[in-house]
């Protein structure tokens, strides 16, 4: 009953093109941003900020990156973690080797470095499609991690290959506390998510989707496949690169190349599949789902079964439930959580008088 658009008229095409055309959505979204931007850092405890909210935001950013490439431009990629690694190590080296490098500039440069590498590994997409392209990006995954391990210069000759992220400071303020790191992450992710949303609702996004849906027709209309696909690779890798740098600097603090392995790439792929392929909101929902579900099961399984199962079986059971839930979701709603949300909103518009 509260969620009604009756009486709200759009009188210009600019109004029709808004992200949230319905007033209730705008209010709701503002509240959401206030809760996560102001209330959460003030109220949440350290565990939640450090172990749950910050990683959810960072993975959301990586998932947005992959979603741009796979969901919007239709190019399947299994190399997201490798592009995150490029971002993390690029940021580390920029801050290490350039005196007085501002953190935000390093973050942007890390993204650009990843974009450059992304374009390079995107070149095969001009000739191959689908699963074959996925295999080519798999090569990126292994090759990049190998390069980072093979040449110790990248990790500043650290004997173990592990690097410790330097302290983050912007304009003299040191981001040390979990609250400060969370807020920084939140701001970066919010700005980049907005930019991504703008991209996909404008001509750039339409070009990506056109190439995804029917590349011959896209060409005949005048889109250049090479430019469109490589731009998708560049933007996608930029997002993954920034996510990787944040992962190192505001989340775990110490990173090694092997941390950005194929498992992580798959995790990000699952996030967009569960969250919703071709949806910015879906990236957030998917990341939250994938990060929160294991934690939930961690607490739930012992609570339900006690110690009767034994520690080994309990952890296996969690994996089984996790896999089962993913399959269940894919069968029930192949378009992901974002689509469920959309359906819920459509129902809500008519509730409680559906006829």
């Amino acid at each position, binding site marked *: 009953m509260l969620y009604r658009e009756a009486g709200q008229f759009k009188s210009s*095409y600019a109004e029709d093109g808004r992200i949230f055309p319905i007033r209730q959505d705008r209010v709701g979204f503002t509240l959401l941003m206030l809760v996560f931007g102001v209330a959460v850092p003030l109220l949440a405890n350290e565990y939640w900020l450090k172990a749950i909210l910050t990683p959810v935001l960072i993975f959301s950013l990586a998932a947005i990156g992959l979603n741009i490439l796979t969901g919007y431009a239709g190019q399947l990629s299994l190399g997201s973690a490798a592009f995150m690694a490029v971002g993390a190590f690029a940021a580390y080296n920029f801050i290490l080797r350039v005196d007085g490098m501002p953190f935000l500039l390093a973050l942007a440069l890390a993204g650009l470095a990843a974009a450059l590498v992304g374009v390079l590994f995107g070149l095969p997409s001009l000739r191959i499609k689908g699963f074959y392209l996925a295999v080519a990006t798999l090569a990126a995954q292994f090759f990049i991690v190998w390069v980072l391990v093979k040449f110790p210069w990248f990790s500043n000759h650290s004997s173990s290959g592990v690097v410790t992220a330097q302290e983050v400071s912007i304009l003299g303020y040191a981001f040390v506390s979990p609250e400060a790191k969370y807020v920084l992450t939140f701001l970066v992710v919010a700005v980049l998510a907005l930019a991504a949303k703008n991209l996909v*609702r404008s001509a*750039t996004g339409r070009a990506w989707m056109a190439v995804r849906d029917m590349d011959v027709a896209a060409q005949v209309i005048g889109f250049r496949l090479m430019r469109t696909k490589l731009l998708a690779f560049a933007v996608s890798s930029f997002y993954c690169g920034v996510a990787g740098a944040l992962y190192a600097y505001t989340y775990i603090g110490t990173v090694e190349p092997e941390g950005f392995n194929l498992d992580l790439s798959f995790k990000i792929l699952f996030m967009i599949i569960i969250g919703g392929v071709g949806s910015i909101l879906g990236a957030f929902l998917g990341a939250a789902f994938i990060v929160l579900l294991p934690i939930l099961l961690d607490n739930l399984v012992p609570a339900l079964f006690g110690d009767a199962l034994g520690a080994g079986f309990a952890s296996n059971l969690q994996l089984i439930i996790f896999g089962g839930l993913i399959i269940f979701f894919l069968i029930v709603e192949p378009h992901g959580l974002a689509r469920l949300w959309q359906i819920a909103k459509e129902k809500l518009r008519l509730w409680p008088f559906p006829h």
Partner: protein
Amino acid sequence: MARQSGDVIVDLRNISLRFGGVKALTDISFDVREHEIRSIIGPNGAGKSSMLNVINGVYHPQEGQIHFRGQLRRRMEPHHAAEQGIARTFQNIALFRGMTVLDNIMTGRALKMRCNFLQHALYWGAAQREEVAHRLKVEEIIEFLEIQSIRKTPVGRLPYGLQKRVELARALAAEPHILLLDEPMAGMNVEEKQDMCRFILDVNDHYGTTIVLIEHDMGVVMDISDRVVVLDYGRKIGDGLPDEVKNDPDVIRAYLGGAH
């Protein structure tokens, strides 16, 4: 109804196209004049769609020359054709199925948009103004083709006849000089065909667009075309006014069926 046709705009000379050993087109010459409705007819496999694909640069003929507005055209890619003002629709609908009707038609404006992706990411100022300006033009086409009520519908949910209409809208959004229509009326019922005929004639009349049309419905072809070219097994067997073609013995034998 003799409409005024202008100068030759596309001139195809001795076009031959082969795929390996298969000869799709053999030594075909014909021209298209400004502002006319030029139909290509012929039995299945005669090479009609290949002919359109040659005109808009999807296929590259091994032999022959194409003069476009008096200029000899070198090897070109589809986007060059688009830049020169050639738009087309496809035999099997080639809409972007994941997008709404509005977004599909907006893609047709792509070549006229100037903002880059960084401006799009900001979606402020120039990028937004451009979006709105092109939306105005697109709305004009939406109104012209009477599809206002479905503008926010994903195209995958539309019935076949409407999808064909949306595809025409997408092609028109580019404001083409030449419109290539590949069987725009295939699979339609009589009312839908009448609507489509009306739209094609209106486009030709209202925007002055030159139209090259492939169609199997002889009634439609003979009714709306200014000139007709007939293909059979990749060769040209007839060319001229609808009435001339209709009475050409070669055409009757090959296409309309000979006396047995």
